[in-house]
């Protein structure tokens, strides 16, 4: 698989490490009343879809940026690559 890095252009996916579902960007509020159940859900439960999946890849052997890659889990085709920072900001995460 080739990941078209927004800053560096096309890179071999072997340069990256894989974290998982991009929903991990949205860490629950530790002060919330139901923080325990929110964290159990966040830490352990996944949609794991067959089809389009947004996921976090880390360019470990490159510029060490985090990317959000939109990829099909049935064909491995990559349709979108964004900097995770941009996604987090756009989706309203403050830090």
């Amino acid at each position: 698989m080739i990941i078209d890095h927004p800053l560096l252009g096309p890179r071999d996916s072997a340069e990256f490490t894989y974290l998982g579902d991009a929903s991990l960007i949205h860490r629950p509020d530790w002060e919330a009343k139901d923080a325990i159940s929110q964290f159990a859900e966040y830490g352990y439960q996944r949609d794991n879809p067959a089809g389009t999946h947004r996921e976090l890849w880390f360019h470990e052997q490159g510029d060490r940026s985090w990317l959000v890659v939109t990829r099909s889990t049935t064909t491995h085709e990559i349709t979108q690559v964004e900097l995770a920072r941009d996604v987090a900001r756009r989706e309203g995460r403050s830090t």
Partner: protein
Amino acid sequence: MRYSGFKVIKEALTGHRGWGPAWRDRDPASAYDYIIIGGGGHGLATAYYLAKVYGQSRIAVLEKGWIGGGNVGRNTTIIRSNYLLDGNEPFYEFSLQLWEGLEQELNYNAMVSQRGILNLIHTDAQRDAFIRRGNAMILNGADADLLSTAQIKARYPFLNTDNARFPIKGGLAQHRGGTVRHDAVAWGYARGADQLGVDIIQNCEVTGFLIEDGTCTGVETTRGPIKAGKVASCVAGSSSRVMEKAGMRLPIESHVLQAFVSEGLKPVLSGVITFGAGHFYCSQSDKGGLVFGGDIDGYNSYAQRGNLPVVEDVCEGGMAIFPMLGRARLLRMWGGIMDMSMDGSPIIDRTHVDGLYFNGGWCYGGFKATPASGYVYAHLLATDTPHPTATAYRFDRFSTGHMIDEKGMGNQPNLH
């Protein structure tokens, strides 16, 4: 029909006209007591033990393709019970004991071969960890044997014990481990279940659940709705896709694992060797091919095929300790979809829906579990209580903190 040496001779002399099909390909009835979703090793074993040990009847196994077309027919066939943790080891030892009696039990040649498995050691810290694991195995009634480099060299003279990065400093052996003919496991359990009256229904994909007031009363399939007293999901890599239809999210990611077979060679490798540090393991099939594998590809996938970087990584690992491998050509490779769980251990439990049960999260190690998985799942279905060897495989362990994490990797499925 019973299989026997006498029968083989008789058929050989009479032109092999007396062999019938081993099991019947059924059409679905409108209702059953038990529906098992998934005709892999675990589903078929569940149906067999449900009928045989727990005396239940009106059982159907629904398979979306053909039985044995999933992971049970794609794995590298290693069986062992060399686990450390209390939640796991009694279960896997129970499974190994069932393997030891399986062929007589089923009257089917599954080619169970206890040729032994060897885990290689490269550092003092690793030796300490392996000794501890060996002791845990012995405490649970399994066998474990710590081997020196000289003992390993005597059995496997071709191993490169002086690799600069991973010199071989010994190994933990389980002599009762080995390999089994994987397809024969599916067919043997199918035949055994069929003889006990189980309906094996192929080309019948479950597309939804019939749920009334929080109770599961049957399934929707591509061959129409089927009613059931109890519904048991057992679909390995498809677990999330199936359980999603009952509104569940699972502590599972689906990942692809590849396997490789070389051209046929003369007997050279008598047992199973695992080189964990180099992501490589290998055995030799009875046809002569070296059967080997390594890590999962590492990203969510339902594609049943992997990518080339892992092929290279596995072969490099092999070359590091097994240099003669370089002279053999790679003949075949394929992939299967693993239900990688958040702690690397399986789940066999009830669900929040009454009458709906779940078995999954087997990661890359569910083949060896096949007999015990079927047995304990049948126990759960018939009695609504967990079998004594499977009490830890609960859904709620991920929220109560009772993870069964052999490798201590945390909630990162691609590292288990």
